[in-house]
């Protein structure tokens, strides 16, 4: 093939090898729907659950809260609210997916988001900087914190649990110093506030949703054609089409919901997709691309699966370790900005509450393993929705605070149990 480098061609000198069916082509024969479904079912049975728990969770929770609060839960306004509620946790979780993929943990991601938000707010309020300088300052703060964590974990070899627990305490001190005891820094910059509080024009929302759906379909079908024409292992076309249909339906359905006028009074219109949802969409596409399509992403999975094998294969394990903490802290900075936008302010306790626990829960509920090596960027979005639905639904039910803690903690434990059991299943399935 034309992409061969000269060195690689040496190994393949004898030209294309004709592959009789008996040789090595069993995976190309079962290219029908039934075979693919059988394979998928075997995969699920062997403990590779993918997005199933999260999707079942969303369906069950929506049904539950709709039954309990039929007049409020499924209103357009609450749905839009739910999406913005999910934003900070989802972004935080997306960064944690990278760290969890290596089997590490970042307990300081929540307070990192607080510090970065405080830096941004101080830059706007005290130094009068424009929003983009402030955002840049927050992101750079995140990168610095992530580099420090990564260096301590990968070079000094302190367990990430201890490093980030120490930073969890230490960084709260920095936020407190920046914001001042008992103080609040208001965030009034138009652009920042718009992120979680303003919606994009309805027409733009439709256009973007349609473009995303069409783009996804084009990528999937093009890839199918490439694999098919080159005689590679390929999923049946019906399955690809079904997946495209599900994604397109989710995109367009979500847009339809968010395009309804949800203003409480008939005098004004309030409709459109919140800008923050667009931000999450962009981050989701970027992270999915990095993890799934680049050598860097492949190396992250390899280090998470077997660090020693990756090292022997020439992967710079130390650099990969440092980089995932940098990514996690950078996304934490963005999460902090979105949270500050949603609350219009930064307080000393920003990011110090349940945010981190929720984010870890979101990633794990979405299907990312705590043991490393398994996970996707989309897990953060699915899990973030589950967490937001629980949070939102319990709020509508008016449950007591102590119950909220108990229920959310139990959900996290449940997700971790499913993860651990699925892992046991996987290791016993491998002969």
């Amino acid at each position: 093939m034309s992409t061969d480098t000269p060195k690689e061609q040496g190994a393949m000198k004898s030209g294309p090898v004709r592959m009789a069916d008996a040789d090595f082509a069993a995976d190309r024969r079962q290219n029908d729907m039934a075979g693919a479904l059988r394979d998928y079912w075997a995969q699920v049975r062997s403990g590779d659950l993918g997005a199933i728990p999260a999707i079942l969770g969303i369906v069950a929770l929506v049904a539950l809260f709709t039954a309990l609060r039929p007049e409020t839960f499924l209103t357009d306004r609450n749905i839009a609210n739910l999406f913005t509620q999910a934003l900070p946790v989802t972004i935080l979780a997306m960064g944690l997916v990278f760290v969890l993929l290596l089997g590490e943990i970042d307990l300081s991601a929540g307070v990192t988001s607080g510090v970065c938000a405080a830096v941004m707010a101080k830059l706007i309020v005290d130094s009068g900087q424009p929003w983009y300088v402030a955002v840049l300052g927050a992101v750079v703060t995140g990168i610095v914190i992530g580099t420090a964590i990564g260096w301590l974990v990968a070079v000094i070899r302190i367990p990430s649990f201890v490093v980030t627990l120490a930073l969890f305490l230490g960084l709260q001190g920095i936020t407190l110093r920046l914001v001042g005891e008992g103080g609040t820094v208001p965030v009034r910059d138009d652009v920042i506030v718009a992120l979680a509080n303003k919606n994009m024009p309805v027409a733009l929302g439709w256009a973007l949703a349609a473009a995303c759906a069409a783009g996804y379909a084009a990528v999937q079908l093009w890839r199918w054609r490439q694999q098919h024409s080159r005689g590679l292992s390929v999923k049946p076309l019906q399955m690809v089409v079904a997946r495209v249909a599900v994604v397109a339906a989710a995109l367009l359905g979500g847009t339809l919901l968010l395009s309804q006028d949800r203003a409480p009074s008939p005098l004004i219109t309030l409709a459109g997709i919140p800008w923050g949802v667009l931000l999450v969409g962009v981050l989701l596409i970027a992270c999915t691309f990095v993890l799934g399509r680049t050598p860097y992403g492949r190396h992250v999975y390899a280090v998470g699966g077997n660090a020693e094998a990756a090292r022997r294969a020439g992967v710079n394990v130390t650099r990969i370790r440092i980089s995932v903490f940098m990514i996690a802290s950078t996304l934490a900075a963005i999460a902090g900005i979105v949270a500050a936008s949603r609350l219009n302010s930064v307080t000393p306790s920003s990011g110090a509450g349940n945010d981190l626990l929720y984010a870890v829960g979101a990633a794990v509920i979405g299907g990312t393993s705590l043991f490393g090596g398994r996970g996707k960027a989309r897990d953060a979005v699915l899990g973030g929705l589950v967490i937001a639905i629980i949070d939102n639904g319990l709020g509508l039910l008016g449950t007591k605070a102590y119950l909220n803690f108990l229920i959310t903690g139990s959900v996290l434990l449940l997700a971790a149990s499913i993860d651990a059991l699925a892992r046991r299943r996987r290791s016993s399935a491998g002969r």
Partner: protein
Amino acid sequence: MTDPTRGPAADRDGEPVLKITGLNKSFGAVHVLHDVDFTLRKGEVMALVGDNGAGKSTLIKCIAGIHPIDSGTVEFEGREVEIGSPREAAGLGIEVVYQDLALADNLDIVQNMFLGRERRRGIVLDENAMEQAARETLAKLSVRTVKSVRQQVSSLSGGQRQTVAIAKAALWDSKVVILDEPTAALGVAQTRQVLDLVRRLADTGHAVVLISHNMNDVFEVADRITTLYLGRVAAEVRKDDVTHGQVVELITAGRSGDLGLAPATAAESM
């Protein structure tokens, strides 16, 4: 000066790919390898045998660039080289397949075979090219035991894993493939598959080193046998010239009849 470390088979036919002469290696005060000569030929399987502590692993690690050597020369395809790091070894075409720790469970076969050396198109992985090349290599080695190249390694048996690890070594433009106890943890049928693969590896023009404690495996696939005894080469012999018993004696006593170390050397090494 006579060379007691050479068996009668030295330097008969075969084009040498790697030729080590007079290699010495010490760790501190411990002299691990004494004047080791070791030659690998294209298309041949060289079994490297010896008791625990005889220096097999150290010799392999010197070849793989993990340990620097103290003295001696290494010739690769006729020119003298220094192998300073695993990367340099890989650059020359020397691939080592370790007993375990070679594969990432959560990646599929193609992803494992290309790990660390992914083909890319711009910044994007070229999955299709990698899958095609992996298929061609597996087909060339007549691997029939794997259902799909897109199967995750976690779902493979021990023999299939070893097959993938060996095929990975053959995927590159490799000239020397070193296999460290490839059949140690395998059952009868799986051992059979792996030994067949070792043979095909040599038949496709590689120089293969097989480290093994299992004499049946050694006599089944090896062309030549090098015995290490307490850091010295007791003998390098052709498989057809010796019996099981002689090799076992070489491993345990350093000599067997007129083969092996001179009595004085063997005794001195104790």
